[in-house]
């Protein structure tokens, strides 16, 4: 690479036809690489910037003219956040609940299972596949299966409760239980990914540390506390950030599991992204929806920065 860069600089004074073969190769490489960059800019960056622009307009996708309204949409977002009962407030409240409950539970479970899987040899591949399968299965398909499992009368969960002579539960039909019910599915489905990352992290830890600890007579807890946990830190940071973002962006399971896909009952499972979707494409308030998106963007950015600054300190 260094050689070719030098060639590149040297040949500046020569016309294209006098380029060296090596230099031509580099130029071609950049031309080909430009395609994904252009694609990415058009598909990701341009719409993102466009969302900022839309948020400053009374943007109706069906209309020809989109009047500029300044920060009115943002004022509405914060006004509704302050109201006692509004969809916007419910959406943000629920989304925070999904993250605060979902991420720790999912990572703790995944770490526990990864530690177990790391110990076993017999049938270990089978177990790994079993835990990973949900992650590669379609969310919509899984969500519909869970919707049936939660069904009050014929659903498996209530049938089992009945067999055990325990009181049957409303699950998705209760404003209190609906959010945890959706969350359970999301935790279970995403866990396979976290387990794989943890397993890879565990494999990185040199066995000699454990042998030394064993010689020193360290208990299992101490080994975990002072060797495994600190050395797994990079995996934990990575998963914490990634899973938080994925919970903040939750959409599909809620759509598939609630009546008319609207985040009910009584907005108890509504997420910010679903609220954005309903406002933008259901009520055609795309300006307001865009301002919600920008607020969510700021939230994700803030959470990520805080997580990185707190957790990555101990990486080394």
């Amino acid at each position, binding site marked *: 690479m260094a050689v070719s860069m030098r060639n590149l600089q040297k040949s500046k004074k020569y016309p*294209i036809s006098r380029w060296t073969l090596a230099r031509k190769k580099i130029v071609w490489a950049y031309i080909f690489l430009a395609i994904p960059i252009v694609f990415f800019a058009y598909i990701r960056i341009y719409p993102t910037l466009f969302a900022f622009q839309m948020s400053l307009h009374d943007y109706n996708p069906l209309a020809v003219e989109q009047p500029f309204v300044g920060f009115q949409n943002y004022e509405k977002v914060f006004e509704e956040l302050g109201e006692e009962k509004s969809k916007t407030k419910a959406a943000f409240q629920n989304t925070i609940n999904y993250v605060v409950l979902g991420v720790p539970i999912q990572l703790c479970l995944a770490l526990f299972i990864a530690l177990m899987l790391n110990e076993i040899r017999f049938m270990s591949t089978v177990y790994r596949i079993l835990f990973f399968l949900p992650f590669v299965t379609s969310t919509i398909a899984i969500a519909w299966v869970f919707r049936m499992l939660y069904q*009050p009368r014929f659903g498996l969960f209530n049938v089992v409760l009945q067999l055990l002579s325990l009181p049957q539960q409303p699950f998705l039909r*209760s404003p209190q239980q609906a959010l945890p019910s959706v969350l359970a599915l999301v935790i279970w489905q995403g866990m396979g990914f976290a387990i794989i990352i943890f397993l890879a992290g565990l494999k990185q830890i040199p066995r000699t540390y454990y042998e030394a600890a064993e010689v020193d007579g360290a208990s299992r807890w101490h080994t975990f506390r002072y060797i495994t946990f600190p050395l797994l830190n990079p995996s934990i940071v990575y998963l914490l950030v990634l899973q938080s973002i994925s919970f903040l962006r939750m959409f599909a399971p809620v759509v598939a599991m609630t*009546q008319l896909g609207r985040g009910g009952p009584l907005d108890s499972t509504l997420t910010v992204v679903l609220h954005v979707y309903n406002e933008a494409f259901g*009520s055609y308030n795309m300006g307001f929806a865009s301002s919600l998106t920008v607020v969510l963007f700021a939230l994700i950015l803030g959470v990520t920065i805080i997580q990185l600054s707190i957790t990555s300190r101990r990486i080394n």
Partner: protein
Amino acid sequence: MRLSKLLAIVMVAILFASLGAVAGAQDTVEIEYWQYNFGARVYAMDILIGLFEVANPGIKVVHNSDIPHANFTQEIAASAPAGVGPDVVTLFYGWIPAYVDAGYLVPLPEDHFSEEFILETFSPMVANSKFEGSYWAIPTAVRSLALFWNKDILADAGLDPESPPATLDEFVEAAIATTIYDGDEKDIYSISQQGHTTALAEQDHHWLREVLFRQFGATPYSEDGRTVTYNSEEGCAAFSWLAAFETEHVTGSIDIGDASDAFVNGETALHVDGSFRIGTIRNNNPDLNYGVAELPVGPNGEQHTFGSYWTHGITRRANDDPARLEAAVKFLQFITSPPAGTLWVNLVGELPAQATAAADDRILSDPVLGPFSAGLAYAHSTAFVNEVEQRQVLIDAFDNVRLGGMDPCDALDEAAAAEQELIDNFWADR
């Protein structure tokens, strides 16, 4: 090869490719028609388009029906900013204000669809769809609500299978009599056969809005449709009556499954629905032994029903090009003609929008279509401004009662306030 040369070749190739595409399209006028996906409607429209293209060789109609009912507004919203989409679109009548508000629809051309012509030829509810002084859309077919009942279930419960409930009191009695529970518990976890399932997300919000409120003596909306007036004592009585099927009589619940699916599968005795359900039953459970009757009369002895329709409008996109506009108008005239209505009623089960075709003796005397057709005379349609959110308001009111234990009157007050806000917001921007 030189870079610049290669680039030049690519540019020229792209230019030619795009010119070719334009040139190829110039021979015939191509218009695009969109509707939501519903098997019978798609089939009927395919036939109508085929007939239309034979009669008008210079016009080709592209039929896009790959849009699920629930995503229709979303697909339209995604297509409009991209400059693509339909020239003729089939939309729910309740969406007209929002589409007009956005400037998406153009008024129907006066010379082909004059007010006189519409008043004379179409059902009264179509004539009432004038918005801001113009007609914006015209339907092939209309529908009303009627009572569906399962004859086998009524017979099993010891009721006369040929005489469905004619009053609201009889309706409650029949629903209670036909509900079966496993075991002694009377809760929704043990219902094995439903008497009636209250489903505000399906047709029951229309039944409540335009029928039950009136039958209990309330007025749903002010004359101009801009003030919600159903949150009165009478309105609350109507709402309480409807909510009680789940909360008090425990005759069914949407949590067991969709109310219409349950009826089609033969698991529910009584069900209020539109004529479009006939096709679903024919396709999914042709052996269902059911009957259709006019909706039960209310405590005040009055008969009402809700009338609605999916209607066809011409979009801004068609209006941009005189040739396409002309083709779109021709297509619209064709699919709203009496023969089209007759074909539609045979294939889809919805009644022709042209009054002459709907009043056909064969339809009136038909045991299934007759009650719907009779209902057209006393049907009301709601002047929605945001149908999806206005429906959600009543769904939430019902959820507040059945899941949150809220008092029905309080829940209805809350709903009225929320719906009033939706209406006010819509008109405030105009």
